[in-house]
């Protein structure tokens, strides 16, 4: 029994931290909030080999596991780097296993993919569903007929500029994963200037049917959950570090504010939630590689814990910094914006929490 990172995993994480440190991503977030374009970090991802992390070696990838991609996502989250991994990585997983004709380009990143999230059936809802445009009623997954897909999928991470879309549709009640290059995208990015989002419309577009199992189609959803979880934990770490630094140097009533129990307990709570989420990232990583039956539970639990931690940490960061923390003078609002949007994407933290309950209840009989 050993949950320590391997030497290769530590190298991957450190290399990611180093590669991202060459860009001023948080400054870029501030400038983007004022209307500037975000720097394109995809070339950095390509150079580091991230697009092929989950693609098998036979197809030109690194043949690694979800946990390795999560380590990179956590580093991206630490610096709010808008690298398009949340869209690309789950898509690449299905394209690799499904025999996609241009997989080598996906692996080397010359073709960027975007995953159109489709939630697997659970213990209450028995259909595959996609995000609703607004409200609680989830949409039916698009209809597939032969090699064409109808309809649209809203709120697709990293859709603008993607070259191929992996969409999960339904044909005769069964899920089918398709690779579609000719979809139209309406840019739907908002609130978090470091995250790109789009509504993707297929409208009968033709593409390739991917030869993947139902379990693999479901895994793509859980890989996306695990990636958001890892990315969120990275952002929590940054919020905690910022808050600790300030709590040690800011004095009120003659004492550093970090000496007050109220502040200390708040930051200990950030640590507690963050450590729990980190433990669950390890669970998701382990299950993703070695215990597929538990991957839905593990990835959902990681997402639920990380989303809750992110909201708490973002608010605590603002609170500890006082009024200035709620202004554009400070970095805290960018963490806050990240937290508010992330918690609503790909089913949202709420849905992940429900999935944990569903998996536990289903296992209880």
């Amino acid at each position, binding site marked *: 029994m050993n949950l320590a990172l391997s030497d290769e995993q530590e190298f991957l994480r450190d290399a990611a931290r180093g590669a991202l440190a060459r860009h001023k991503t948080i400054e870029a977030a501030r400038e983007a909030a004022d209307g500037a374009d975000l720097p394109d970090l995809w070339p950095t991802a390509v150079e580091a080999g991230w697009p092929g992390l989950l693609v098998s070696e036979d197809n030109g990838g690194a043949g690694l596991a979800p946990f390795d991609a999560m380590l990179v996502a956590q580093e991206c989250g630490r610096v709010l780097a808008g690298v398009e991994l949340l869209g690309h990585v789950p898509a690449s997983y299905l394209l690799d296993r499904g025999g996609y004709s241009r997989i080598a380009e996906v692996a080397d990143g010359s073709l960027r993919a975007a995953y159109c999230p489709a939630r697997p059936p659970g213990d209450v809802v028995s259909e595959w569903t996609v995000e609703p445009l607004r409200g609680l009623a989830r949409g039916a997954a698009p209809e597939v007929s032969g090699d064409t897909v109808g309809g649209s999928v809203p709120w697709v991470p990293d859709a603008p500029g993607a070259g191929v879309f992996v969409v999960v549709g339904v044909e005769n009640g069964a899920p089918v994963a398709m690779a579609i290059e000719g979809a139209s995208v309406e840019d739907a990015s908002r609130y978090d200037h470091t995250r790109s989002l789009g509504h993707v419309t297929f409208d009968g577009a033709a593409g390739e049917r991917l030869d993947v199992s139902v379990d693999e189609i479901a895994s793509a959803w859980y890989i996306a959950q695990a990636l958001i979880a890892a990315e969120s934990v990275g952002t929590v770490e940054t919020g905690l570090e910022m808050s600790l630094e300030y709590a040690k140097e800011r004095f009120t009533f003659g004492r*550093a504010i970090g000496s007050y129990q109220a502040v200390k307990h708040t930051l200990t709570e950030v640590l507690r939630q963050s450590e729990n989420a980190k433990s669950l990232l390890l669970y998701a990583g382990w299950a993703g590689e070695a215990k597929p039956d538990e991957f839905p539970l593990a990835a959902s639990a990681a997402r639920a814990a990380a989303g809750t931690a992110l909201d708490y940490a973002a608010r605590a960061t603002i609170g500890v910094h006082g009024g200035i923390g709620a202004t554009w003078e400070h970095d805290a609002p960018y963490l806050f914006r990240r937290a508010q949007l992330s918690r609503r994407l790909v089913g949202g933290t709420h849905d992940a929490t*429900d999935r944990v309950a569903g998996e536990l209840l289903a296992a209880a009989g």
Partner: protein
Amino acid sequence: MDLNDSPEQAAYRDKVRSWLQEHKDEAPVLRGEGALTDEDEIVAARRAWQGRLAEAGLAGVTWPKEFGGQGLGPIEQVVVNQEISNAGVPGILDAIGVGMLGPTIIAHGTEEQKTRYLAPLLHGDEVWCQLFSEPAAGSDLAGIQTRARQSDDGSWVLNGQKVWTTNAHFAAYGLLLARTDAEVPKHKGLTMFIVPMDAPGVTIRGLRQISGEAEFNEVFFDDVKLPADAVCGEVNGGWGTALTTLMFERVTIGLGSEGMGYRSDRFAHAIAADPEARADGEVRHALGSLGTELLAIRFSGYRTLTALQRGQIPGPEAGLAKVTLVNAAIKAGDLIADVLGPEALSEPGEWSYMISFLPGLKSAGGTEEILRNTIGERVLGLPPEPRLDKGIAFSELRAKEREAVSA
């Protein structure tokens, strides 16, 4: 990252499992059909079973061989815990003695003490209890007031009161922290003693909790005489000895936090039978949240174990696990009572017992608030709160406290 056994661990597990298979009929039955009900019989049967486990090398797994242990690591201890749980048999009776007090004697005791006490402790022949907490000193343990005064012949006389003492009513010995010098700052005037629980002047009284059951005891000491060689460790060096015990307490908790039975699958099972509840959004959200926290603890435990195996000191996840565990279990009890209604509060009953037990557990081993202070300072490096007890003699500190109360 691998949760599977190494070949050596798998071989060890097989050995443990086959011994348990062969001998599990000798274990006392504590639940279900044919379960023992008389408290004295239960204690006697569990002591005998601890002896069988110790003979087989399944108690004191991490103790050095020279003291009857196996000289193995924390991972083997966890393997034993898991296999005992899987076999459906009780573990050792004296987990506090074997997990915390014995290791303290190994670290600080004299050769005579080790020879006299360790083997009977390990085998369950003599059960031990921990006499640290007092009515006015829990989280602030160094504030204890039980006094030990030395006589001219070197012997000691003990006066005072301890509380929250598990197993005291059938323990043979206790490890007791007493104040031996009140004229120095509070951490510096403490000494650890080995106290026979049948000594004249020792009075033990059950302390009933919310459930009505007495899980713990109060222990009173009135002019209890102790020989000079009852001191464990250095005279006035008792704080260091106590820290050793508390370190072993954290390790014991870290290796067995799931052992308390507060598991997500158990709570889900209680709700799953009710079709309305399992489709109710609010119930599901509550179950999903607390289930997430409990799953996190399991993997925090594996992280702790990973650190211990690598010779590292466990990180913050270990200290915070208790906070998470207790609060998630409280939410679970609340949710189950919401779902089952007053039926959940029938006594005796699984859920009423848990619901009654948890408010006290919140303060066990130090209150949540003090634990958060400690973690904030030691782990996060935040500055401490100003303290009024630093650098002044304990007697002076007490005088100030009394003055403040009467003012």
